[in-house]
């Protein structure tokens, strides 16, 4: 059967002041009718640019297709005039995007935005188009489609907007739907619904799907065929079953191993050293050279072709090339493996460090002529948790459940409305700023965003020094510098980095600096507010390892705030599940994952996509 779309040696380049970046550099694949093909990879690997190239929407003039073909049902669409391309968009290929909150035009009604495409491509009258639009809204599972038709997008939640996007994309029954990280911005329960909906519609309409994602588990559950991208090239491509049963490329293997999960509890996660190079600096040979644990002498200079090494399994790696392996340049380069120690938390009853009782954080809602408070947003509505010495409590919940507010309320970054936070026998909620200062060095916080958590105008040394100056005023300057250098080394950076500015570091390194800043004041308890959710999975593994190490070495207690269940499964000793400002369940990790009691916890755990036969 003829594939719906066939990409042949596609090259999409970007001009930038630093030179030409080969964002997509010779990518080929086919998608069969009615199947889902996944492109997976870390940020900056070129998967989104591939998608934009398929629908011919590469941002001009910086970006341009430098070569190759995109055959839509046998017809090359790269060289078509713009007018013809427009006829294809929306009818034969359509696309949905990552950010449902911004992808709909705020000033037009939802109906208007669906009807627009229908009228344009199918030449229907307004009445007919409206009927189709309402039908589409119904098909994507939205309630009251007749009323929704006249609504503006801002009245809808993120999940509903993504459904509207799907309705727009599928309104003309396209052959191919490109879904670029369609669920990344959504909560895990919503993600589950949207992915199921896409599968369902694919089967009823016979549409093919190109699924772009960084989440391997989502691929595992949703795609028939998968290609792993790195550095603008496909590293490995096979059917989903084959690839997950027998990953062959070192990159794929490392990627799979760095995913945290319940089966890796008590172990160090494997990581990938180094960072993804910018598109302008890809090496001439294998793009993974320099980071690969099995790199050979010839890898950086000779590009491995994407070749079928097993039936239906394409790999771009010299390891499977008998010819390459017989030559002298196949001598492996020595790479230092990161220490792989067991990290199991020692069993036994541990003393309570911090006890939160009935914590409430309310914000007033002001309305009317005099802005009187007419009610309260109950961000945190009476939670009780206990944190034990040297262990990790994960506070899990979906966006808007109040978990971040709770974290800030606990360390008094926000003054709670009511309740008590007892730290070593003292209730710290009533203390003045001055009295609180004593406790500041004991309780610290690591933030989510590695970019806004460091002042761009201060050198790394100054950033770490700030806490020391404020909380350890007796330290001399020399002592402070020694402490800064020590801490930098502890988090895997070098002492001389204290003279550099934050912008010189990658996201993962910045997060290490954030941890160093906190570690320098010797805290006993750290709140980690989604510390890894802005990071790629391989970098996330590095940070999780680091947190585990410092916990082991210093006996620090962690309150780990996150929405990512797989991270919780890996790192938490105890788990508290939060919804609408309340704690639904507070249990040991073993108990909660084996026997969740609360129905919401059950839904949450069930919605998490998992790789069942992960190779490790």
């Amino acid at each position, binding site marked *: 059967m003829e594939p719906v779309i066939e990409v042949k040696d596609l090259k999409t380049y970007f001009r930038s*002041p630093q030179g030409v970046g080969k964002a997509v550099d010779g990518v080929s694949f086919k998608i069969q009718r009615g199947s889902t093909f996944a492109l997976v990879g870390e940020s900056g690997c070129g998967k989104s640019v591939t998608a934009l190239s398929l629908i011919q929407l590469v941002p001009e003039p910086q970006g341009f297709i430098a070569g190759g073909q995109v055959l839509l049902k046998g017809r090359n669409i790269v060289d078509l005039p713009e007018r013809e391309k427009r006829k294809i968009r929306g009818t034969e290929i359509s696309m949905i995007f990552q950010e449902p909150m911004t992808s709909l035009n705020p000033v037009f009604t939802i109906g208007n935005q669906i009807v627009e495409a229908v009228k344009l491509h199918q030449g229907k009258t307004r009445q007919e188009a409206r009927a189709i639009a309402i039908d589409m809204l119904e098909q994507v599972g939205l309630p009251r489609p007749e009323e929704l038709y006249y609504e503006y997008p801002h009245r809808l939640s993120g999940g509903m907007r993504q459904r509207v996007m799907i309705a727009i994309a599928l309104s003309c029954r396209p052959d191919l739907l490109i879904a670029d990280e369609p669920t990344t911005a959504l909560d895990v329960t919503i993600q589950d619904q949207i992915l199921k909906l896409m599968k369902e519609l694919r089967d009823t309409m016979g549409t093919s799907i190109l699924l772009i994602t960084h989440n391997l588990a989502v691929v595992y559950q949703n795609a028939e065929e998968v290609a792993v991208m790195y550095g603008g090239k496909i590293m490995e491509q096979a059917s989903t079953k084959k690839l997950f049963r027998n990953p062959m490329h070192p990159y794929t293997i490392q990627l799979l191993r760095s995913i945290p999960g319940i089966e890796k509890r008590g172990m160090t996660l494997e990581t990938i050293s180094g960072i993804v190079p910018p598109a302008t600096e890809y090496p001439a040979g294998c793009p993974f050279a320099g980071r690969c644990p099995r790199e050979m002498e010839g890898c950086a200079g000779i590009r491995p072709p994407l070749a079928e090494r097993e039936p239906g399994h394409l790999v771009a790696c010299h390891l499977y090339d008998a010819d390459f392996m017989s030559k002298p340049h196949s001598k492996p380069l020595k790479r230092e493996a990161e220490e792989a120690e067991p990290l199991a938390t020692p069993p036994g009853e541990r003393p309570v460090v911090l006890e939160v009782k009935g914590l409430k954080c309310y914000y007033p809602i002001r309305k009317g002529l005099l802005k009187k408070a007419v009610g309260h947003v109950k961000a945190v509505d009476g939670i009780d948790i206990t944190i034990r010495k040297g262990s990790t409590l994960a506070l899990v919940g979906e966006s808007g459940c109040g978990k971040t507010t709770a974290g*800030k309320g606990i*360390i008094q*970054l926000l003054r709670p409305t009511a309740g008590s936070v007892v730290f070593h026998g003292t209730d710290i909620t009533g203390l003045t*700023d001055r009295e*609180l*200062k004593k406790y*500041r060095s004991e*309780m*610290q*916080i690591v*933030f*989510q*965003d590695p970019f*806004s*958590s*460091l*002042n*761009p*105008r*201060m050198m790394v040394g100054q*950033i770490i020094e*700030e*806490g020391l100056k*404020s*909380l350890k005023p007796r330290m001399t300057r020399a002592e402070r510098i020694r402490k800064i250098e020590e801490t930098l080394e502890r988090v895997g950076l070098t002492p001389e980095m204290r003279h*550099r*500015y934050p*912008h*010189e570091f990658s996201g993962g390194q910045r997060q290490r600096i*954030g941890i160093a*800043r906190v570690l320098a*004041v010797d805290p006993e308890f750290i709140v980690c507010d989604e510390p890894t959710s802005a990071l790629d999975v391989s970098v996330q593994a590095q940070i999780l390892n680091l947190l585990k190490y410092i916990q082991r070495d210093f006996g620090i207690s962690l309150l780990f705030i996150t929405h990512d269940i797989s991270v919780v499964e890996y790192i938490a000793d105890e788990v508290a599940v939060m919804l609408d400002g309340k704690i639904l369940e507070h249990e040991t990790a073993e108990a909660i994952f084996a026997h969740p009691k609360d129905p919401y916890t059950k839904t949450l755990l069930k919605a998490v996509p998992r790789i069942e036969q992960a190779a490790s």
Partner: protein
Amino acid sequence: MPVILATDLIIFFVVGIVVYFIFAGRKEGYTRNAWLQIRKNRLAMVCMSILVLYGSVAVLDSIRFRDPLRTDTGTVVRAADGKKIYSPQALSLLDRLLWNMRANTEKTFSAPLASRLYVKESMELPDGTMVRDYQPLEYPGKHLLGTDKVGSDVLFSAIKGVRTGVVIGTGTTVIIIPFAIFFGVMAGFFGGRIDDIIQYIYTTLASIPAVLLIVAFMLIFGAEGYQGGLVRDRDLYQGFFVPNDRLFWLCIIMGITSWTDLCRIIRGETLKLRELEYVQAAKAFGVAKMKIIYRHIVPNVMHLVLITMVLQFSGLVLAEAILSYIGIGVGPEMGSWGNMINTARLELSREPVVWWSLIGAFVFMFGLVLPANIFGDAVRDALEPRLRVR
């Protein structure tokens, strides 16, 4: 004997700021990157050179001193108590450098590079007969832009306008920066009542029509100030400082009418910064509020100050000309393009037309404002990519 006007201090202060920025930003990554980006933009660099040239002229025209009065034989005239007596004319370095342009005056109008006057005058021929003819110039071909009604060199007048333009363009912003930062940061950081009060102040000020506020202010405060020309004894404080400088008052009132924009921008940015994680981190370290403001907020709004300064510059130069044209700007003896335009406008209705004064003012003004606009855009693009226009 030096004479220092209040506005001279502004010029020196601006030079100081520029030097500080060059030294402070040399190492720091953020500023350095911005500078490297600007440096790549060749047009911006050309514009910067032109601005530096204008700036140097302004600096040269701001260092002035009075010479002791001398008798024809060259001996210094002394008062009864033996002190030297100084001439009331405070000449700047620029005046002294271009002394021949200043001194080479004609009787009245002459066209650019002409050798004779532009209007016929009665003159007596050697044989005693009276004729009306174009009299020869005393300095033929020396006046690149001709001379005006009283015979002064137009080019020189235009050059003398540089200092006024630069002072207004930079001084106005410089004077208000501390207030704008203080109020903006306070309002944004503390919020609540403080925010309400500060917002009230700037909404009230912004609601008064700027021109009229300037007019009223200048009529009341500017009338007594030093207006250029000879230095009167009552202007002088301690014999060398002129605090009551009309141009300085103009800077102040134009500052008052323009600070609200900067204040609003800084308030908005502070509101954003306040929630940023590095500020939260500092709070978690128990760092005092004032220290947080000093260390985390103010350095991170400074780029907005710089952007505002360069972007406001051209608007202020243009505004000064208009105000001086209306007659509420600088004094008539202070070199100013607005004053030049004011007189030149009437000359346009002469027959034949006297056009060079207008052209002179136009060229010099345009030559300052255009590079300032282009350079301002480059600075903004480099420092605040969010505002960039592709």
